[in-house]
C-alpha cells in the first residue's frame, strides 16, 4: 500500500478545482440553509442549470462571457420559480419540491426530447476554449514542489476557482454582516416575530434562495469549464447530498464553514476511496466480498452514515458554535 502516493493524491484532490467548485456551491447552499434556514434539497439543479445555460449559449454561437452571464441568470431564475410557490409554506414543502425538481430537470435535460438544445445524454463539449486561451501558464508544463505537481492547465483553473471561492466568501461576509444579513438571521429565528417587525419575510427568503442558487450556478459553470464538458449524469442527487455534508461539516451558518468543509470532506472522501480501492485490490477477503465497483460505493455509504452521526452528535460542525447550532430545541 503506497501511503505516500495516496497522501499526495489526497492533497492534490483537496486543493484542486473540483474542491474549489464544491466550496463555491457550498457557499451558496450555506446562504440558503445555514443562514436563511431554507431546506433546499435540490441544490445540484442550480449547478446543472448554470452549467447548461453557459454551455448552450456558447453552443448556439455566443461568447463565453455571455454564457456565464446567462448561466448566472438562469440559476437565479430557477431559484425564483422554485421559491415562488413554496416559500410561503412550511419548510418541508420546499424540501420536497426541490428534491423533485432537481431530478425532473435532470431527466428532462437528459431526454431525447430536449436533445436539439441539450444534446440529451451525451451533453455538450468544448465550449470553454476562450477561457483556456486566457491561461498565462503553458498548459502542458508542470508546476509544483516535489511530487505535488499540476499541469499549467489545471493550475489556471485552480487559481481562478479558488479566487472565485474567496470572492464569494467575501460577498457573503459583506451580506451577512449587514442589516440585510441581520434580518435573515431573524427570519431563521422566528418568521412571525420578524414579520411583526415589518419585514417582508417572503422576499428575503426568495432573495437568499436566488442568490444562493446563482452562486451554485457559478460552481456548476466552473466544474463544466474544468472538464470542457456538461452531461446530465454529472448532476445526480448525490452531489446535493455531498454539499450538505460539506456545509454541515464545516459549520452551517458560518462564513468560512463551506471552504473548510469542502477541503476536509474532499480529503477524507478521497482518502477513504483510495484506501478502499487499494484494500479491495490487495487484500484477499475484501476482494472476495466486494467488487471494485462495490468498493467504490463504500465511501458513499460512509458519507450517509457520517451525515447522520454529524447531525446527531455535532450539528454545529467544525467551526460552528453549539448555541448557534441548527438544532431547534423543542
Amino acid at each position, binding site marked *: 500500500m503506497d501511503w505516500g502516493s495516496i497522501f499526495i493524491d489526497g492533497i492534490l484532490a483537496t486543493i484542486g478545482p473540483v474542491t474549489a467548485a464544491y466550496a463555491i456551491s457550498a457557499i451558496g447552499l450555506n446562504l440558503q440553509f445555514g443562514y436563511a434556514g431554507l431546506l433546499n434539497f435540490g441544490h445540484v439543479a442550480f449547478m446543472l442549470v448554470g452549467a447548461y445555460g453557459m454551455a448552450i449559449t456558447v453552443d448556439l454561437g455566443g461568447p463565453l462571457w455571455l454564457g456565464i452571464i446567462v448561466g448566472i441568470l438562469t440559476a437565479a431564475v430557477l431559484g425564483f420559480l422554485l421559491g415562488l410557490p413554496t416559500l410561503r409554506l412550511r419548510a418541508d414543502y420546499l424540501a420536497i419540491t426541490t428534491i*423533485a*425538481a432537481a431530478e425532473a430537470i435532470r431527466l428532462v435535460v437528459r431526454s431525447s426530447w430536449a436533445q436539439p438544445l441539450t444534446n440529451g445524454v451525451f451533453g455538450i463539449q468544448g465550449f470553454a476554449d476562450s477561457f483556456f486561451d486566457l491561461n498565462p501558464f503553458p498548459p502542458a508544463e508542470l508546476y509544483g514542489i516535489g511530487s505535488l505537481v499540476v499541469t499549467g492547465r489545471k493550475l489556471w483553473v485552480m487559481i481562478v476557482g479558488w479566487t472565485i471561492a474567496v470572492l464569494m466568501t467575501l460577498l457573503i461576509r459583506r451580506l451577512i454582516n449587514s442589516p440585510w444579513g441581520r434580518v435573515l438571521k431573524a427570519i431563521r429565528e422566528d418568521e412571525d416575530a420578524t414579520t411583526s417587525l415589518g419585514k417582508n419575510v417572503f422576499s428575503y427568503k426568495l432573495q437568499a434562495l436566488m442568490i444562493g442558487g446563482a452562486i451554485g450556478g457559478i460552481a456548476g459553470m466552473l466544474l463544466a469549464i474544468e472538464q470542457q464538458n456538461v452531461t446530465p449524469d454529472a448532476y445526480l442527487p448525490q452531489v446535493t447530498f455531498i454539499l450538505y455534508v460539506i456545509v454541515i461539516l464545516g459549520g452551517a451558518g458560518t462564513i468560512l464553514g463551506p471552504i473548510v468543509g469542502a477541503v476536509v470532506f474532499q480529503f477524507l472522501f478521497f482518502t477513504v476511496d483510495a484506501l478502499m480501492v487499494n484494500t479491495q485490490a490487495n487484500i484477499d477477503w475484501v476482494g472476495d466480498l466486494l467488487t471494485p465497483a462495490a468498493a467504490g460505493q463504500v465511501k*458513499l455509504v460512509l458519507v450517509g452514515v457520517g451525515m447522520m452521526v454529524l447531525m446527531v452528535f455535532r450539528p454545529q460542525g467544525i467551526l460552528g458554535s453549539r448555541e448557534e447550532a441548527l438544532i431547534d430545541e423543542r
Partner: protein
Amino acid sequence: MSRRARFAWFWLAAITIVVLSPVASIAAGESIGGKLIQTVGTEKTPVESATVIILQDGIEIGTGQSDAEGAWEIPVPAAGVYDAQLDTSTLPDGVGLTDPEKEVLTDINVREGQAKKVIFPLGVGSVSSVSTYDRVGALFVSGLKLGAIIALCAVGLSLVYGVTGLVNFAHAEMVTLGAVTAYFFHASAVGPQWPLLIASVPAVLVGAGFGWAQEEGLWRPLRARSVGLVAMMVVSIGLSFAVRHLILIFFGGEPRAYPDFAGQPPIEIFGISVVPKNLVTIGVALVVLAGVGLFLQRSRAGTAMRAVSDDADLAESSGIDVNRIILITWMLSGGLAALGGIFFGLNEAVQWDMGFRLLLLIFAAVVLGGLGTAYGAMVGGFVVGIAVEMSTLFMPNELKTAVGLVVLIVILLVRPQGLFGTKERIG
C-alpha cells in the same frame, strides 16, 4: 442508548446483512439486450422509451424499455431459444423499422451466463396508427397500476408524517428493501427460491421490521434528545443515502426481474389488452388499501393513530400511548412500502434505486392528497399514476416523471394543503 434501541440496531444490522449479502454472490443471469438507434444517412439518434418483448414459444417472458441511450436489456430466466419483438406502437413518430420483417427477431440462442445482443434496424418510419381507444384504454390501465403502486407507497409516508411531523426521505429505501428482500427469497441462487407469493411474506415482514428498527433505534432516541425536525429530516436523508448505496453494493447495479409471472400472455378485457399481473396488482392494492382504511376507521389502534395525527398532546392526555402508536405507524408504513416495492419490481424490475426513482411521484401523490392524510395519499397516488401514464398521449414518453413535478408545483400554487388536508396555517 437504551437496551431496546440497541436491540433494534442489532436487528437492523442483522437483517441487512442476512438478507442482502448472499445476493451479492449471485452471478449475473442471462439476458437479451441491444441498442435502438435510428440511422438516417450518417445521423444516428438513440430511440428512447420503446418497448421490446421477449417471447418463448409464443409466451411473453419479459418486457423492457430502451433508455435515453437507446439501450435495453431484458433478463431471461435461463439459457435457451427466444424471440424478441419490437413493439412498433411505442416507437416515436418518424421512427420505424427499415425492414418490416425484422419486427420480430426469432431463434435467438442465449447460452449460459450470456448477455446476448440483438439489433432492430431503425430508420425513418411512418406515423404509427394505433387506435385511440386501445391506446387510451391501455394507458388508463397502466395508470391504475402505477397509481396502485404509488398509493401503497405513499400511504405509509403520509401516516408517519401525520403522527410524527417527519418527512421520511428514507421511505424510498423501504420500498426498495421490500423488492430486494422478495427477490432474495424468490430468485436468489442461495435463497429458498419460494414462489413470489410466498416470498412476499418475509419481504413485507422485513419492511415492517425496518420501520420498527428505525423508530426504536433512531427516531425515538432522537426525539428524546429534543432533536428538531429539520435535523431529523437531514438524518433521514443521510439514512436514505447510506442504505441506498449499501443496497447498491450488495445487490449490484443491474436491474433484475422476478422470474414468476414473467411470461404472462395478455388477456382481453373490454377490448383492451391487459397482462393479468397488472390486474392483480391493482386488485390486491385496492384490497390492502381498503383494509388500511378500515383499520384507521374501526380499530382502536387506527383511531388512536388518527387522534395522534390530529393533536399528539391531546391524544396523550386522553390516555393514548403515543410512542406505541408511533411505533405501529412506522411498522405499517414499512410493510406497505415493502408491498409497494414488490409490485413495483413486478411491474418494472428490481433495482437498487427503484424507490428513489419513485420518490418524486410518491411526494407528488402525498402533497396532492394532503400531507398527513392516509386517504389523501391513496387518492393522490391513483391520480398521479393515471396522470403520468395518460400524459404520454400528448407528451413524449421520457418526460413522464416531469409530469409528477408539474402536478406537485400546481398543487402547491393552487391548494397547498392538498385535496384532503385542512387549511391550517401551513406557512
